[in-house]
């Protein structure tokens, strides 16, 4: 189970150079051009510098210094001016290219699915708002999007500055307290993509990742409908006991499970925890072992996380994990 999940995570992509949306593709296209021209300039100028150092075109004068003829000197002037002009023209080309890509990215689609993303130290709150509040979906650290449709993300921060970045989809956008910002993309290749916080945000900046699951519209709708349901009602006795542990212990102070009295909002919504692929914002795969370890001693997996240790009896822990695993 653990091995296969690791393999599954390995297939998760996070690269700016393998775009999965027209937006990232436009940036990658720009990048390859900048790179080709830039690398050429780098190697060419360095090569010319080295060649020039060996050219030895100066002739020693009476003063022991090197001189060139007046004609050569004015030739040098022409070459330097030409090189400067070429530099300016290339930069102008870059500028126009950049502006054209930037314009396309800045043009937000008129109609789009909107997802609210709020950054917390160190996890992502994700809300699919609906005019009908009962149809709104709350989740964390895993964003599902339908392929081929523009999705707009409205970004806000709960505490410090974070930055929302899915390299395969688009550039990044900061989440700054007191400011609203947004970014959009239109995934065109189904798959699971890794995103993460790109602005240093404290102790666990390294473990503030999330997944973007790009899926076909029917799959997405199915997922959304599933997420709209309340938390699964436990049936077997172990899970029932686990729910009691959840509700009577400290868990419910911080976490919500829809359909139960647990309405804490400090930590991620756990209504559909078992449907998510990873734990603690991309810190570990969502397996029974990691889940149990995380609950008992989160500080050992993610030192500094705001979740406290929960010294449960082995029986209680087993029951709690069994319950959480029913929350598909």
């Amino acid at each position: 189970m653990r091995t296969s999940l690791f393999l599954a995570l390995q297939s998760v992509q996070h690269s700016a150079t393998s775009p999965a949306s027209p937006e990232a593709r436009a940036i990658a296209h720009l990048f390859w051009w900048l790179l080709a021209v830039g690398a050429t300039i780098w190697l060419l100028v360095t090569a010319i510098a080295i060649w020039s150092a060996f050219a030895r075109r100066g002739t020693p004068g009476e003063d022991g210094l090197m001189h060139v003829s007046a004609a050569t000197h004015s030739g040098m002037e022409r070459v330097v001016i030409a090189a400067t002009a070429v530099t300016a023209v290339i930069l102008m080309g870059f500028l126009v290219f950049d502006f054209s890509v930037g314009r396309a990215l800045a043009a937000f689609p008129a109609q789009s699915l909107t997802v609210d993303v709020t950054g917390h130290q160190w996890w992502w709150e994700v809300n699919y708002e609906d005019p009908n509040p009962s149809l709104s979906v709350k989740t964390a650290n895993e964003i599902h999007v339908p392929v081929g449709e523009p999705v707009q993300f409205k970004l806000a921060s709960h505490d410090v500055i974070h930055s929302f970045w899915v390299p395969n989809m688009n550039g990044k956008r900061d989440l700054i307290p007191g400011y609203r910002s947004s970014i959009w993309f239109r995934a065109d290749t189904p798959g699971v993509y890794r995103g993460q916080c790109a602005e240093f945000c404290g102790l666990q900046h390294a473990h503030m990742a999330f997944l973007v699951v790009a899926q076909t519209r029917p799959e997405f709708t199915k997922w959304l409908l599933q997420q709209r349901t309340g938390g699964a009602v436990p049936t077997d006795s172990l899970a029932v006991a686990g729910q009691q542990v959840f509700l009577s212990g400290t868990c419910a102070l911080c976490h919500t499970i829809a359909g139960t009295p647990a309405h804490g909002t400090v930590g991620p919504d756990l209504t559909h925890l078992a449907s998510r692929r990873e734990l603690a914002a991309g810190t570990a795969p969502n397996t029974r072992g990691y889940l149990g370890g995380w609950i008992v001693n989160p500080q050992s997996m993610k030192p500094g996380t705001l979740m406290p240790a929960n010294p449960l009896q082995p029986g209680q822990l087993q029951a709690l994990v069994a319950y959480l695993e029913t929350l598909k």
Partner: protein
Amino acid sequence: MSAGETPRDRALVPAADAPLPARATLSDDVLAAEHERLNALWSDGSGFWAWLTTVDHKSIAKRYIVTAFLMFLAGGLEAGAMRLQLSHPQAGLLGPDRYNQIFTTHGTTMMFLFAVPMMTAMGLYFVPLLVGARNVAFPRLNAFGYWCYLVGVVFLYVSLPLNMGPDAGWFAYVPLSGPEFSPGHRVDVWAQLVTFTEIAGLVAAVNIIATTFKLRAPGMSLNRLPVFVWTELVVSFMIVFALPAVALGSTFMLGMDRTVSTQFFNPAEGGDALLWQHIFWFFGHPEVYIIFLPGMGMITEIVEAFARRKVFGYTAIVLANITTGFFAFGLWVHHMFATPIPELGQSLFTAASMVIAIPTGVQIFCWIATLWAGRPRFTTALLFVMGFFFTFINGGVTGVMLASVAFDKQVHDTFFVVAHLHYVLLGGAVTPLFGAFYFWFPKVTGRMLSERLGKWHFWLFIIGVNVTFFPMHLLGLNGMPRRVYTYLRETGWGPLNAIASAGAVIIVAAVAVFLVNVFISYRRGEIAGNNPWNSYGLEWVTASPPPNYTFMYPVVVRSRHPLWETSVELPVLTGLSTERREVLVTTTMDARPDHRHNAPTASIWPLALAICMAVLWIGSIFSPYMVLWGLLISAPVLIMWSRQSMNIKSTELVQPPAGPIVEMVQA
């Protein structure tokens, strides 16, 4: 004297065709006696007290350079610790708390305690030598600047082992660095450390500006200024305009938010979190050019000396440096492209960020032309210039790429930027700096650095830098953000990080070779003589190492390359007092002799005032009342300092000197 002509107009620089008998007309006995008198007059004494009170720019700048280099080593060790931690996925060497302190201290050390102080210290040593002055314009202030800097160094490096090292990044973004998310004193240490480096930086800048404008050798008009002095001048003006921004931001606004609960940056109380970024980068971006431009100046000096010809396009190079200084203030928003700033505003900064590549390009083309039209000697110093081309141009190209908003939003705050900035700063500042060390070490110590070890140093360094930082471009494109203390194996970032860490080992070896070279050469290196490289500048006129008074007589300059103009000795002016410390003040544009000025002697008050500043600013992080106590104890020190300075006077020259060698008539 004809009607309407003032005495000052008569203080002309000798004409180019004036006869050239110079010091040759002074007998050896006279010169020896003069040397004894002046050396005693300009000596600040020896012993511990003298060490505390000296105001000689050479002693102070040497200390500055050594301290800044120690900071380079400290910052390097921190980088080494980070590379060890990141060399493989989920390493357990450093936890996040320790890692964050270390990466913050690394950045803070390298920017505030190594790079800027090192570049200003090189200016404080060499600007007076290159312009033919005996000391900087404000020697006691100079001492005060160094002591303040040293307080900052000690403050940070005492705090770090006490687990009080700053941990919010060298940029200290609010709200993370604010009182709510960074309780305790770690960020206070950062904020007030910056205060000490600001004081030191501003003091150095004022000194370099005044020295350059008023203490130049007679005849060294501005268009004869060595390019290195030009870059130090431009950088000093940049410091004057840029550093107050961060002083405002860190010392006052952030400091007060943290200590007396002002709410400048707290959005919940009507403050603004983005404001900090504007203030910080308005300083932070020019800072990069403050570090980089002196490196450009050093390259021009080295290229001229070793291509064995006058630099091609002097005027273009000077104008390029000035232009860069201006444009550097119009780029700061390119650090903030991911913030919600309107796109139209961002475009302006994209354009400016691209345009600034042009003046840098002009300089590079001029150096290449100079090399082409010369017959270069491949000394270690010139090798470092060649290494600069390879390394810096890479960083410059990625810099232009990062100017693009669209592309920047992909790689901003990733390892791509880490690669870029290290290519620029190691390539554009540290590489020329090493070249300058090989070039000027003989002048400072009187002995040559070993060229054989130098070549090892060069190759190890250039290979190490490229092996370390090139893979980081790829890591950034593959999604690795900056400032992470670890990463999961599944990310696939392991192998490239392992290569980068291996490269860091090569850099350590390079720096070790350099240190060995310095230690051996300092004791046993070849004796340098006045002008081992046959270079052109005034620093090569005097002995190596320079005597206390540096120049026995003000040298008369009649071209941009004084030592290359004539095979005979340079003409000098005589007549400055040998009874008290006296320097010749010249006019700003044309460097005509203007005033005689008696220079200050050793003083303990600069150190005393720096200690008061330490009490004030370090105390302020524990109690705001310490600001009052600090001011209270500063008052008597300032009074004593002023009393001591009351006898320092400038006297206008009544009958100015004329001719290449003249006795200046006592005023």
